[in-house]
């Protein structure tokens, strides 16, 4: 609980600062403050993880949940590192603290979602995590695309939530309660409850952007500011993934046969469709959007594993994914901030002018593609391992074929940067210190989380 409280305190602190600080150079105050607050929250919340329940069981915490929260916090923190160039622009000067307040609030929502002990808390967390996000998506409100992203997100999110609730209303029938523990004992698969379960899963699938519930993803990712997109793709998705996994394992265990076939179907569709769309994208953000859809399909493979193995693989992948995807988005953000260019073709010949950035992007893309020695390789293999432990060899085959296709498009930016010739490549520019710091952290994470087995072992132990 101290974790959430600390975040809430952060919101208050930011509000106070917003009220009392002068308009000039607000960024230089608020950004380091936010980073510090986030770091403090992680420290306070992450130290000595304990297990227990509060409020009659609707709030529960344990080492695994703490770990997941830390992963989410780390994602948010890394996003903070990349916003400097964007948030300090004149048009954003009047809403600097608002950005951080909204991020902190959504993070609180996700924490509650992760710590939920019943569906109501989960629902509240979910909404707290997604409603302010629509405001974040529309943050660049002077841009048409940003406004479009905001409205598309809020409306489709509302609809998906309606479906989720509609499903829950049927699940409620079986047990008369929405407490996870009580529900687990009472849950029996029959026609109505399975129907409810599917509706519920569809609602969650929307948040994780699984095909065919993914259609909002690309538009919103493209329209939203880069930092927000990074936040969407990693943190928001991560929380939903964890909750869905946990709920499926620990609440709907009795319907394992049914949700598995659904997961398999979703996995196949998600990987394939995500890849097919990613193939043809020109805009880096849209490209990464479809890539993240495909990645979600891989995560489903991990979910198919049972017990600690599945859970640990999924959370480990989320951890890896945080570093990897934010690294990629950071580079996109750096380039977008410096030049406003976001298309793959604009990146041609970039290695000649900005070698370090390109190397970071390359490593990140390889990690996404699952190429050793970076962490993505381990993450992906462990997901496959989880699926294999249940005998899903054909599914793994489909997945690895998709991974091969994905390599094709992940190599496209690499090719543009390293191989293609360009008369007028993007000129050299110097990223700000925050950005460099963030990229450094991402790189460290991408390499360390893979090679150092401690991360996975710890997650496995607490799962």
């Amino acid at each position, binding site marked *: 609980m101290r974790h959430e409280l600390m975040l*809430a305190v952060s*919101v208050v602190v930011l509000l106070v600062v917003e009220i009392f600080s002068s308009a000039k150079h607000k960024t230089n105050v608020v950004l380091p403050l936010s980073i510090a607050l986030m770091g403090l929250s992680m420290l306070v919340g992450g130290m000595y993880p304990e297990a227990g329940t*509060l*409020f*009659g*069981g*609707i*709030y529960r915490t344990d080492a695994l949940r703490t770990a997941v929260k830390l992963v989410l916090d780390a994602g948010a923190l890394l996003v903070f590192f990349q916003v400097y160039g964007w948030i300090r622009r*004149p*048009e954003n000067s*009047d*809403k600097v603290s*608002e*950005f951080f*307040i*909204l991020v902190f*609030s*959504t993070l*609180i*929502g996700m924490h*509650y979602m992760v710590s939920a002990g019943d569906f*109501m*808390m989960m629902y*509240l*967390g979910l*909404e*707290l995590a997604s*409603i*302010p996000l*629509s*405001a*974040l998506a*529309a*943050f660049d*409100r*002077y*841009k*048409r695309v940003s406004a479009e992203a*905001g409205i598309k997100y809020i409306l489709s999110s509302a609809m998906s939530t309606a479906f989720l609730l509609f499903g829950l209303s*049927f699940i409620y*029938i079986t047990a008369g309660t929405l407490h996870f523990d009580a529900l687990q004992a009472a849950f029996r698969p*029959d*026609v*109505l409850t399975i*129907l409810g379960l599917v509706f519920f899963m569809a609602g969650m699938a929307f948040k994780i952007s699984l095909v065919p519930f993914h259609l909002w993803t690309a538009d919103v990712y493209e329209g939203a500011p880069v930092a927000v997109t990074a936040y969407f793709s990693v943190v928001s998705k991560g929380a939903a993934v964890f909750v869905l996994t946990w709920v499926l394992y620990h609440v709907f265990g009795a319907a394992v046969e049914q949700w598995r076939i659904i997961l398999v179907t979703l996995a196949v569709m998600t990987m394939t469709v995500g890849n097919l769309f990613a193939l043809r994208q020109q805009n880096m953000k849209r490209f990464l959007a479809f890539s993240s859809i495909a990645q979600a399909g891989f995560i489903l493979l991990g979910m198919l594993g049972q017990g600690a193995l599945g859970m640990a693989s999924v959370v480990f992948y989320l951890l890896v994914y945080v570093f990897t995807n934010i690294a990629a988005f950071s580079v996109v953000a750096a380039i977008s901030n410096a030049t406003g260019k976001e298309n793959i073709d604009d990146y041609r010949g970039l290695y000649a002018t900005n070698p370090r950035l390109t190397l970071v992007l390359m490593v990140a893309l390889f990690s996404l593609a699952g190429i050793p020695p970076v962490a993505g390789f381990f993450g992906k293999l462990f997901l496959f391992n989880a699926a294999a432990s249940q005998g899903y060899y054909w599914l793994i085959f489909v997945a690895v074929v998709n991974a091969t296709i994905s390599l094709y498009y992940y190599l496209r930016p690499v090719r543009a940067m390293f191989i293609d010739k360009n008369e007028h490549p993007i000129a050299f520019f110097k990223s700000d210190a925050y950005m460099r710091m963030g990229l450094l952290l991402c790189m460290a994470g991408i390499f360390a989380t893979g090679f150092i087995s401690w991360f996975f072992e710890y997650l496995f132990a607490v799962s």
Partner: protein
Amino acid sequence: MSLHEILFIVFSTVVLLFSLMTVLSRRILRSATYLLLVLVATAGIYLWLQYEFMAAVQVALYAGGIVVIIVFSILLTHHIHHRSKPFPPVRVITGLGVAGLGAALTIWAILQHDFHYHEAEPLEVNAKVIGQHLVNTGDGGYALPFEVISVLLLAVLVGAIVVAKKDKANEQTSENK
């Protein structure tokens, strides 16, 4: 047929009929009015179920709150006599098809289900009980969700400000784009 049954039939008929009209009316202000009727009729159903507090909330928050801001926004964005264009037939077919199929499937599932009604005497639901629940931090208490809602409302407030705030510098230029 008892009064109860008649009431139920009336309420549900109103709900369904005006729901349909909300969706199908081409005059948006009428839609909003129908929605209001639907919400009020829903409150009736809550009353029928003896959840008076919920009915009150429904009328106050939904009918009184949401519909009002919807109407405001309509007034902001439409001419009064605006009549929307006819719906594209493909979309109507898709919408009705999907919705019909979904409804049929769900109703079939509901009919499949064998409900075991609980014969116990229902709990008295009044403002006091509800208030006690809302501040209770123990088993069956809703203090935490209540707090979460407050954070949510704060966030929504900030979010709405972010979205609605008038830009000083860029407003003029970007609007003409």
